[in-house]
């Protein structure tokens, strides 16, 4: 199969993720969308690895998953902390770092 299809799917997934990050306000959903973006990138990595017959792209994808797992852990921890403090679970309300 042509590599182009894989890349198109990857781009669509990435764009759905990016759009989600931009439009959703619930931090949980934002994290989910981040995962989508990462997996979109992963898909293109795996596709390229297959095209070249080189395994390092797949290993790279595995490492991205590990990093994504870590990131989600931190992110969910934050969400729990926000919830416990009874703060609004809304990224637009959490604008304490405003300059």
């Amino acid at each position: 199969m042509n590599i182009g299809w894989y890349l198109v799917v990857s781009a669509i997934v990435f764009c759905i993720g990016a759009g989600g990050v931009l439009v959703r306000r619930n931090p949980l959903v934002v994290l989910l969308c981040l995962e989508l973006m990462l997996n979109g990138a992963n898909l293109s990595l795996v596709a390229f690895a297959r095209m070249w017959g080189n395994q390092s792209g797949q290993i790279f994808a595995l490492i991205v998953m590990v990093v994504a797992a870590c990131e989600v852990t931190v992110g969910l921890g934050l969400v729990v902390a926000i919830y416990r403090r009874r703060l609004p679970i809304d990224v637009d309300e959490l604008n304490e770092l405003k300059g």
Partner: protein
Amino acid sequence: MSATTYGWLVLACPLVGSVGLGLGYRVWPGRAAGWIATLAIALSFLFSVLAFIKLLGAVPDHRQLTSTLWNYDVSAGVDAKLQILLDPLSVFMILVVSGVSTLIHLYSVSYMTLDRGYVRYFSYLNYFVFSMLLLVLAGNFVLLIVGWAFVGAASYLLISFWYRRTTATRAGIKAFVINVVGDVGLVIATFIVFQHVGSVQFLTVFHGVHQDFARNGAPIVIACLLLLVGAFAKSAQVPLHTWLPDAMEGPTPVSALIHAATMVTAGVYLIARMHVLFEWAPTAADVGAIGGCVTLLIAATIALVMTDIKRVIAYSTMSQIGYMIMGVCLGAYSAGLFHLMTHAFFKALLFMAAGSVIGAMAGNQSLDRMGGFRRALPFTFACFIIGGLALSGLPPFSGWLSKDDIIAFVDHRGGAFVILGIAAYAGALMTGVYTFRMIFRTFLGDPVPEAVELEHGHLHHAEVPTNPMTGEEEDTDVGFPGPGHFIAEREWPMKIAMSTLAVLAVVGGVLQIPGVDDAVTRFLAPTFADSKYSHTEVASAPAWVGLVIGALIAVAGISIAYRIWVARPGTSLRLRERFSNVYVFLSHKWYFDEIIDFLIVRPVLWTGRLVDTTGERGVIGGFTDATTGAVRATSAAVRRGQTGFLRYYAALMIVCLGGVALYFLISST
């Protein structure tokens, strides 16, 4: 031990005393601090005597010894060392300084009792003696400057000793500032000398002067004039003299030690030490001599009208140092230093006696309030008379021989210098008048209540202590004079100190009698061997003529004072009314304070204010304001980007990264 070891020990004793007293200022009970300080200086005097004996044991040609403890710096080409020079001149000075200081310390042991700053006082006093000894023992310009600045600092500390008195702190600041002017002169002179000779060591410089400087050329004259600035500031010569009368705010023993016997003679020492330079720059030497002569006249005229007993003595000190400066500038080195020694004796004596009178007056210093103390203070009266006679120059007192020694030498130089000699005689006449004006007004006449009280055996105590200058009420806590007042009649340490000085003031002159003995000249000869005046001797016949004239003038001065203030009381008031313009002029001290205020202080203040408003606030402030404004504006702009919205950041990142990706895509095709 060698002579130089004694020299170092002379320095070590007061230093150890000062530091030890200062560190343990809570520990020393009662008068212990005073005795420790006195012991330190007495040891210093003992070592001075031992050094003197060692030096006498050497042949005259080997009487210039140097000793180095530490070499500060050779890498920069400056041969500055921690080095002392022990030669007849410095030994002469350390003998006078440590000897008189011992007696003044002894006097202070009693005089300062009950003062809350007793230990601090003696720590300062020892520090002063150390600085002064360092100044006279220094073997190079660098150490000389160190000692020079140290005595200025010690003088400041001691003038402002009663630091809660505004008048005292102001006087201290004034003295320090004027002294610093002198320090600057000395430092720049040192630089000029170093620039030409390439050395800061005295002996090297003195040997190199004749090759490295053109005789009476601009560099050497400028260097010597700058040295004169230093000497004039330290020795309170016109126009840098205004600090000395104000310095009388310090405790009386301090006036005796610093502002009569030792520190103010540093200028005389400096000129004598630098005589090689001054002889190579006769123009500067003549300027110095004229300055000294002018000072001795101006100071004597002001002393005629002062009503503060200590200020009268202060002006007489200025006047006497004028004689010394004139002498050493014209080559009368041994005469000038001889007068320095006798002056130290009788002037310290006069100050001590004045301190005793002030004690009897419970701190009041005004001659207008004094009178009739001769029966209440017989011992002080005798000391005052002896000191006064020595100061006026009546035979056979020491001042007679030493002062007329200088004048005889000045006249011997001949030419225009005779004018200076005549002016010096005029000064001598006034000396007799003002000295005995002070004595007559203090001790003769009707006894004032304080004197009557004392005759009945009770020392007057002020109900409320006040500042004698302003009349402000004070307390007796630390920073103000203590509650006790002391008179020599009741305190044996004061009595011993004063009687020793009285004896010295009487017999001190025998060291140098024309035609009979010239011990001072002979002893100092090795130092001044390279002087062109070393063989200029006044024959004994003209010297005796001078002595007779001097004696007659002293008698004339004293009898004028007697006529005005004793024989016909009220004459002084009539004179004052008749010559009211002169009186006002003199009582304003020739308006020197006002002139300096107008010429220097106000322009400096005005410049300062100008720089403050335009330079500081306008230029520097404008620059910093502009800088901070720019930073603030930039950060405000940047801050607008920091919205705090997560999604905004994400969008920004996506757009930017997308832009980067696009750029690479486009550039790769």
